[in-house]
């Protein structure tokens, strides 16, 4: 079953809108399939969120919330959904992930050179190790306290019903949560995985921006419902566009052309490309060639006999801050 239909089926089940037989069948699958079960939990959380925000008709929400309100665990999740929705709504919107470069590994733009030599690698590794030990010793001298974990951290002072000792710049309240982590609490609490403290980010070259485009079923005249947006933060930012191909394409190589939609002018072309892994063809046009605007990608497949055939025409938009 496809992932979309699984998700929709789970929503219907949770809303109590599935015929009994199908619900029974789905429950058997839920017992067998851990991934499906986790997706069902996710679907429940999303439905509750939609109910809390009034995005789902009350007639649909009511049976779900009533069923959940019957059990202690369900009541906890209902309350959490409400609190999370309120807290998220009250949190100022930060630049979305889609507006920032995606956190992907640095791409191998360079060919192996000096670094490929073992002796050079060993020398660099030894130097780095020394640097790390030195930095650790300095840090140990300056900051003897261990990093705090959720398990060790206490809730904000206001939640403990005490007045914060030193007068902070802003009064601590649920509207103004403390900016520094609370001090370790005395009572033992169930351990949670340690949460890393946020470290200030050093200035460095922007990470690569990656955009995945579905090629299948795209035609030259398509008006896509959801524009694919490529956010570019600087002219030297590495760009990677991944074109998702159909399985088992009969082509030995591909030609890609990126053209501006407004005037059809090609800004970047490559031929002789082959999918690097799986069924994704990765292209890396320079960011400086892509000004703000809409682009049409023309993807052609080249058969082993040398004939060129159109494969698809995905679109994307370039947006800069």
């Amino acid at each position, binding site marked *: 079953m496809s992932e979309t239909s699984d998700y929709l089926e789970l929503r219907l089940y949770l809303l109590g809108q599935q015929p009994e037989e199908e619900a029974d069948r789905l429950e058997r699958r839920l017992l067998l399939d851990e991934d499906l*079960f986790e997706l069902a939990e996710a679907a429940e959380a999303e439905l509750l969120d939609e109910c809390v925000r009034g995005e789902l008709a009350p007639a649909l929400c009511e049976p779900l919330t009533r069923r959940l*309100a019957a059990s202690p665990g369900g009541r906890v999740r209902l309350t959490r959904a409400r609190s999370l929705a309120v807290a998220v709504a009250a949190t100022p*919107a930060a630049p979305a992930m889609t507006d920032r470069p995606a956190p992907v590994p640095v791409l191998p733009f360079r060919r192996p050179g000096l670094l490929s030599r073992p002796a050079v690698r060993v020398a660099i590794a030894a130097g780095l190790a020394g640097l790390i030990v030195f930095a650790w010793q300095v840090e140990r001298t300056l900051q003897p306290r261990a990093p705090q974990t*959720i398990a060790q951290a206490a809730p904000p002072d206001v939640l403990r019903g005490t007045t914060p000792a030193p007068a902070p710049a802003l009064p601590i309240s649920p509207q103004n949560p403390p900016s520094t982590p609370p001090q370790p609490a005395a009572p033992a609490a169930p351990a949670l995985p340690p949460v890393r403290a946020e470290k200030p980010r050093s200035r460095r070259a922007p990470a690569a921006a990656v955009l995945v485009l579905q090629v299948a079923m795209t035609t030259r005249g398509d008006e896509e*419902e*959801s524009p694919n947006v490529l956010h570019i933060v600087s002219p030297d930012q590495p760009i990677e566009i991944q074109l998702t191909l159909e399985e088992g394409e009969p082509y030995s190589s591909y030609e890609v052309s990126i053209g501006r939609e407004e005037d059809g002018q090609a800004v970047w072309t490559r031929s002789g490309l082959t999918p690097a892994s799986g069924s994704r063809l990765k292209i890396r046009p320079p960011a400086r060639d892509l000004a703000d605007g809409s682009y049409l990608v023309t993807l052609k497949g080249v058969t082993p006999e040398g004939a060129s055939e159109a494969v698809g025409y995905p679109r994307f938009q370039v947006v800069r801050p």
Partner: protein
Amino acid sequence: MSGGRRPGASLRSGRSGLSQEAFESLLAQLGPDRDRAGEHYESIRRRLVRLFEWRGCEFPEELADETFNRVARRLAEGLTIQSQDPYSFFCGVAHLLHKEVLRERAREREAQESGDWPPYSPPEGEEPEDRRLGCIRFCLGQLPADQRQLILDYHQGEDRIRSRQRLSLTLGLPLNALRIRVHRVRRQLGDCLALCLEQARRG
């Protein structure tokens, strides 16, 4: 069931109702390695609890235990599960149990001539909203930056269908994988919230 009566009256519950022999038969059915079988037991139990919750049962944990008890008793009586996977058998027993619960509920309804569900009243000790909100903000602040951003991106925005599609493209994740990733962060948030409220309660 629905009237607030625990199922213990007519549906015996709890592992305590099981003999050691019956429990061992149950574990043996779940796998040759006892530790692994124990993990299977917990995993099935967790899912059964949730299924009963989704069916609107009031005491899902006890019904899950009762499901195990019934399976274990049948096994101790010499029943061999023919099905390739024992999970289906558990599911079948759980369905029968749920039907019993529904019948019992119907009988109660007839007897009491009252509404199907008890009016929802906050359980004793439910946290004040401001404390809960404070804790959830605190816990959001405790999340690693990328996870916090993921939660906020996922829930904020006007056109959330599109923004989630964009997010899935940006992260290179299929939508369901994105949903599950967000759900895991939510779960982590839930654990932190419970801990925070507990600590706040202790003062």
